[in-house]
Every structure is written in C-alpha cells, then in structure tokens.
C-alpha cells in the first residue's frame, strides 16, 4: 500500500557502459539521480547493468550511498547474485532512502542469452514497500511471461518496475513489454532502458490507459531513444483506486476456470 497518495517516480535512461570501477559507476549515475531528486522523485530506477560479468553485486555499497545522498528509493541492476553453490542469478536490487539494502529480486524465467551465460533462475517473488507504493520487480525476460506480473499484482504490488533491453524501434516492440503488463493488471509501471549501439532508449512511466490524458497509457517517456534522460512522472494512487472501484480486474478473475483448466495445463507442460 502506498504510504502517500501521490509520489513522483523516475526512470533514469543511461548509456550502456562497461564501467572500470564501482566509483566510476556511482559517479556516472550521480548526476541523473540529482536530476531525479530535484524533480521530487521518491523512487529512481536505473537502466542497464554495470557491464561486469565476473563481479557479483559490484557497487553494492555505492548504490546504497547514492540512495541515501539523494534521499530516494533506488532500484538498480548492480550485477548478478551468486549463491554458496556458485550459481549465478540475474537480479535487481532495492535500496531504501537511508541507504540500506531492502532486498533483491531474482529473474524467474531465463532467456536464451541468460541460459548461454549459465545463469540460474530464481524462485520466490517479493513485493517491496516504498514511499512510491508497493514495488514488484520484473527482471529482464520476466516481462515476457505474464504470470510474473500477475503474481506480483496478486501479492499486493502497486508499481511494476522493469529494467530491460530494447533492440527494436517499433512502437509495438515497446508496448509488448511492460506496457502490456501494466494494462492487464491496472498497475503503474516504471521501465528503464539503456541507450547505446543497437539499443533503443524508451524509458517510461506507465499507467492504465484510463488514467492518462491522451489515453495511451503513458505518463512520461524518453523523447530521444538515443540519449540519456531522466523520465519522471507523478503516480496518483487515489486515481488508481477510483479506476479499480469502477472495474476491478482481479475481482473479476475466473478463478474456477484457472484452477480447473490452466493449472492442469501448467502441470502437464512442466518439465520432469
């Protein structure tokens, strides 16, 4: 549940680099975070990863320091997690505005690239409370599997956060990512994409189409797909509650149908 009825959030669209150090990573993001803080953001989402394959949770301390310095919650890809068995998990981290680590969300469904890198899949979903609403993190390819966003919504998330990579310039390729999930679940969405060679920066803040003035479901979007940007917008949780009062997607789910038919299909398709 959002602790405030309105909150500004920001997607920070950065350039995809392989950083030379944690300090360099922090120095790069400081300016954009200052811009987000100036606009009153309570939550900032960083695009892209530090670019290191062999460093686990690299700039952990630096990310916390940035969150504290700018007084906002921070969602960032600071590199994958590694467990005691040596398995490597793509994930996103959440830092509170006092600099503490709130938690991490591992990616649940892997892409071909993830499998080629010998990544492992996470299991549990988490919802993180923040001053910008309850956050559900959609990591990488999880945006293509609607069960993830649906489960996060049913677990109480109010804002879906996605950090991914976009390589197609068409409007359809972009709408097929988090926008689709935001509409299906009557959620807010914050989506951060990096820019760079072969990458399309279309970072955005999303809402159900009924809540946006032009009916497109977009509260703010990067104007230039090739340039760094701070994309910020205000989320109105009261307006979202009013929308849900008019039609509540979750309340109208056909649970007997899902339990009887979809569940058995999931089980049938499950690998041994």
């Amino acid at each position, binding site marked *: 549940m959002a602790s405030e009825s309105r909150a500004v959030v920001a997607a920070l669209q950065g350039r995809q680099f392989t950083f030379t150090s944690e300090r360099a990573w922090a120095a790069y993001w400081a300016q954009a975070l200052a811009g987000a803080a100036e606009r009153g953001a309570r939550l900032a989402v960083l695009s892209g990863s530090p670019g290191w394959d062999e460093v686990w949770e690299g700039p952990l301390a630096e990310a916390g320091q940035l969150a504290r310095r700018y007084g906002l919650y921070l969602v960032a890809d600071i590199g994958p997690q590694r467990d005691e068995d040596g398995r490597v998990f793509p994930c996103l981290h959440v830092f509170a505005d006092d600099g503490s680590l709130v938690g991490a969300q591992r990616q*649940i*469904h*892997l*892409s*071909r*690239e993830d499998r080629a890198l010998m990544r492992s*899949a996470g*299991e549990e*979903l988490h919802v993180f409370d923040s001053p910008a609403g309850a956050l559900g993190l959609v990591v990488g*390819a999880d945006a*293509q*599997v*609607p*069960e993830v966003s*649906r*489960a996060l919504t*049913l*677990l109480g998330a109010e804002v879906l956060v996605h950090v991914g990579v976009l390589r*197609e310039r*068409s*409007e*359809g*390729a972009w*709408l*097929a990512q988090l926008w*689709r999930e935001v*509409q*299906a679940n009557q959620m807010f969405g914050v989506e951060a994409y990096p820019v760079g060679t072969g990458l399309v920066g279309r970072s955005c803040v999303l809402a159900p*189409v009924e809540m946006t003035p*032009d*009916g*497109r*479901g977009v509260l703010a979007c990067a104007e230039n797909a090739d340039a760094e940007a701070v994309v910020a917008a205000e989320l109105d949780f009261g307006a979202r509650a009013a929308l849900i009062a008019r*039609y509540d*997607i979750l309340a*109208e*789910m*056909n*649970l*007997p*149908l*899902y*339990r*009887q*038919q*979809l*569940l058995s*299909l*999931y*089980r*049938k*398709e*499950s*690998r041994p």
Partner: protein
Amino acid sequence: MSAWRDAVLFHVARALIRWRAGLSAAQGWLARASYPQAIPPDEDKARLRVAAVQFPARLFASPADYARECHAWTLRAVEAGAQLVVFPELVGFVPLLGLVPGIEAQAARATSGAGEAGALAAVTRLLAPSATRVYRFTFQNLSRRFGVHIAAGSAIAAGRDGTLRNTAYLFGPDGFEMGHQPKAHFFGLEFGMGLTRGGFVQVYDTPVGKLAMPVCMDYTYPETARIAYLLGAEILLNPSADINADYNWHYQLRGVWSRVQESPCYGVHAMMVGDVLGMPFRGQSAIVGPVGLVGGDGILARADACDGGELVVADLDLAALREFRRGLSVEPRWDWCARHLGAIWERRSL
C-alpha cells in the same frame, strides 16, 4: 396481482417476438441469394486468408433483413478470398433487438440504476431464444452455401438449466456447428443481463488451423489466451462489442494484440460498431500477430475507422508461426507457474 400481470405480459411479448422471428421469409431470401464458393484451405494448413467483419450495428425488425445484411458481409469476405470469416460479439443479439416490439421507446425511457438492469435482464431473457434461433439459422445457411468457415461472433445461448451465456459459435463449410465458446469474463452491460460465465476454453482443430474463440473481455485476462495457447491454438478469434464513446486504439491494444505477444498466435479481432439504442459501439477490427513474427507493430491489417462498417483481410502464415514458436528465446517455467499461481489462486478462493 402484479406478478401475475408481469407473467402474462412476459408470455405475450415472447409469443409476439417468436412470431416476428419466423424464418420463412429469411429462408426464401437465402435460397435465392448468390453464393460464390470460398477457396478451400490448403491441406497442409500452412497459409490462410482471414477476414474480420467490422459489423455496422443497427436494429433489424425481420430475420430476412438480418440475413440479407449478414449475407452481404460474408459475400464481400468470400469475394476477397477469405477462407475464414470472423464476425463480432453479440452479432446474434444486438441487431436482433429490433425484434422486440417497442424496443426503441423502451430504451428511450430507460434510466440508469437497478431498474434498468432489471429491464435489461428481462429483455435478454425474452429475446435470447428467438434471436439465437435466427442467428444460428442464418450463419448455418451462409457457411454451408458459401462453403466457408464462419466464426459467427456470439449470441446469447440458453442452457438446459435455464442459464444464459454469451456464446461464440464456429460453423463449418457444411453448415454444421464445429464448436462453441461461452464468455468467461464480464464487463459493463453484461453484469445486468443475467448471464452466467463460461467455465472452459476450447481449441478446435479445423482445416483452417487450430482455433480458439474466447470473447471480448476474455482477452483482457492473460489466463484465457494462455489456456488456448497451451491447448495448441494457432489463431485466437476475438469477437468484440465495446461500448466506448471515448475509444482510442490503445484501449483496444489491451486485448488480443497484447495476448498474442505473450502467447504467440495470430489474432483476428472483429468489432461491432455504430450506435444502437444509445449505445456507442466503437473499435477497429484488426488482424495481428507477435511483433517478432509479423514485424512492425504486430499488425497485419486494421480498419481505418472505429465507427463504420469495414472488411479487414490478411493472409496468415501458419507454417511461419510454428517456426517462430520453435525459436522463442524465453521458455516459461510452467512448473513455477503451477506452484506459485496455483497457491495464490487457492488462497484467493478461500
């Protein structure tokens, strides 16, 4: 006394509607109409031409007029080479409200609130048996005489237990019903119509591909398309009738377009349009596919306008779809879905 009077009025009105819904004139007209034959589908089911009818709704006071209109759209589709023709939701009900004596005056008197919902439920119960009989008769004739597969949108079907369901029908080129699909999720007007939700999703393996036909709002829910996809569907037929004076394209993108991006299939979205009894039906019929398969914005064809009749035609490459599915980068972990969604649904059901 009031209940007795209402019962008498109900039976009188139903008898009058039955009389107006007599099929002999429609039968005569359909027997005289022309029927160029549809091109049979490929034996290997690799390619297919489909047409979505953006049906301009108005009231028909006679089954013959209704049959003439449905024939005209099917003829256009067949002449355009369509092998599968898709009509919109409630094409077997809304236009046939014209069979109800004085319906326009009743609608003009209607006020919002519980009274209107009750009146709507009463009209639905009155009309549904006759309207569905006219509808089935019409589309069985059209599919058989043109030799074409018709996904004939939907009508209000009465069950043996007296329940009413918004049900989509598929008719084969021999005129027989190949399948049906009751709507499983409701929106807006339907809550006042006294309808019962459907409890299954079916996929029909036909000479024009593996078809599923959930109805309109069903596609707002990823679960519906997911069931169809896991059952092997290749084409999701989406009959719709949206009452939305503020329509824009992004409203509509939340439906089957979104679903085929996550459950890779082709989608055929047929909309009812026009103003009937104060209800502004809006939408742009479209034939869509996964962005990664069909390119661009995932749209093969789309109606130009949201408020006028139009035929939307496109070719589907089912062989390419099958190849696309084999090359998907993300393999959903169905075991994870079973564990987590299953547990959440269980908790919500308690």
